[in-house]
């Protein structure tokens, strides 16, 4: 159907078209979304999907919190709400799992450059080591909660019409709806109750030798 010279040309045109479409998808999502919506308490993934899909609005970002870890996921491509919330949770679990590996590397680095005696004699080093172990415990606990499906989404960004936003605002679970241009209303998306410093009580109760022993065990020296 096509000559020898036409096929490469068509391939090149298709490649350029694909690239420009991809670029268009990305640039279409740059800049603030139409509105930010915060909830009275964190919602689960299915609730967020239904919340936006029932009103026909486009979900662009979500904001989440678990055990004092705060995160946001932003898609630059137009994807469904189902895909966005699924990708966010799966990416978070993968990220925390990878970071568990790198946290062991930090523990090895710490015990490699500080002896048990140095740690025992330096309150600052004990604080640092305790925080390194608490980061690791926090990631482990968060992975378990996320895998169980714990509700963590406290706010979302959407593209929506004023009529759609009015409908969203009437939902009893909504704390605030703020249009992009309304900076004052876009403040304080996260409920104050989520501003927690989480730590593991067992780690907090360890003395200097206990901290060091645990670091050696978890760092895999």
């Amino acid at each position, binding site marked *: 159907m096509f000559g020898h010279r036409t096929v490469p040309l068509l391939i090149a045109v298709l490649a350029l078209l694909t690239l420009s479409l991809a670029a268009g998808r990305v640039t279409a999502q740059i*800049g*603030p979304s139409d509105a930010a919506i915060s909830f009275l308490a964190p919602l689960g993934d299915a609730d967020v999907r239904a919340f936006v899909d029932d009103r026909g609005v486009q979900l662009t*970002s979500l*904001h989440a919190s678990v055990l004092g*870890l705060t995160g946001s996921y932003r898609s630059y491509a137009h994807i469904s709400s189902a895909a966005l919330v699924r990708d966010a949770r799966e990416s978070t679990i993968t990220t925390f799992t990878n970071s568990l590996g790198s946290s062991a590397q930090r523990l090895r680095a710490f015990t490699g450059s500080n002896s048990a005696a140095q740690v025992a004699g330096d309150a600052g080093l004990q604080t640092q080591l305790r925080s390194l172990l608490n*980061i690791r415990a926090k990631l482990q606990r968060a992975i378990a909660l996320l895998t169980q499906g714990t509700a963590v989404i406290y706010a979302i960004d959407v593209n929506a019409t004023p009529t759609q936003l009015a409908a969203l605002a009437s939902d009893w679970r909504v704390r605030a709806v703020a249009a992009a241009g309304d900076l004052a209303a876009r403040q304080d998306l996260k409920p104050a109750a989520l501003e927690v410093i989480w730590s593991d009580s067992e780690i907090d109760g360890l003395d200097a030798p206990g901290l060091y022993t645990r670091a050696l065990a978890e760092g895999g020296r």
Partner: protein
Amino acid sequence: MKKLVALVVVAMMLSRTFAGAMYYPTSGDFWYNGQWQADSYTNWGCCPGGWLTADPGYEHDFATNYNYFTSCMTWTDLPYAYDDCPTAGVDETGNLWVFSYGSFHAQYTVQNTSYYGSWTFGGGSSGSDPYYLQGQEVTHAFCSGDSIWCMGAVRTTTLGSGTLYWGQSQYWTW
């Protein structure tokens, strides 16, 4: 000019008052897994402080080539944390976009404590891309509340830079 002189005087007073205090983490590290993820630990050492503003924020800025990303995600356990992916690309004019996480109220960082933060991207990949990691004091410049759209830069320091090579992990400290 008077404002500039006053600012310099205040900065000198602050630096004398809090000897060794830094607005950016005095030690930390950066780890890249060779694919779509990087994380960083930050520690202000003995003396978080030396801020130029009364209610300072801190932003950990990771700048790299945005071209092949379809998503951005950050997480951190900094106090009063925020995640800045929604603002990435809004003000940038070149290929380097700044993907950040930070703290709305950095005065609550605790001495000698290490804090965690991570960046995860989705999409395609490139063989190699330059990146910069910067620590930035920020303040509530555009509105008084806690919103990523309120925060404006006060001053910035480069903590490190390099190249991300696809398939090669890297780790370094400062």
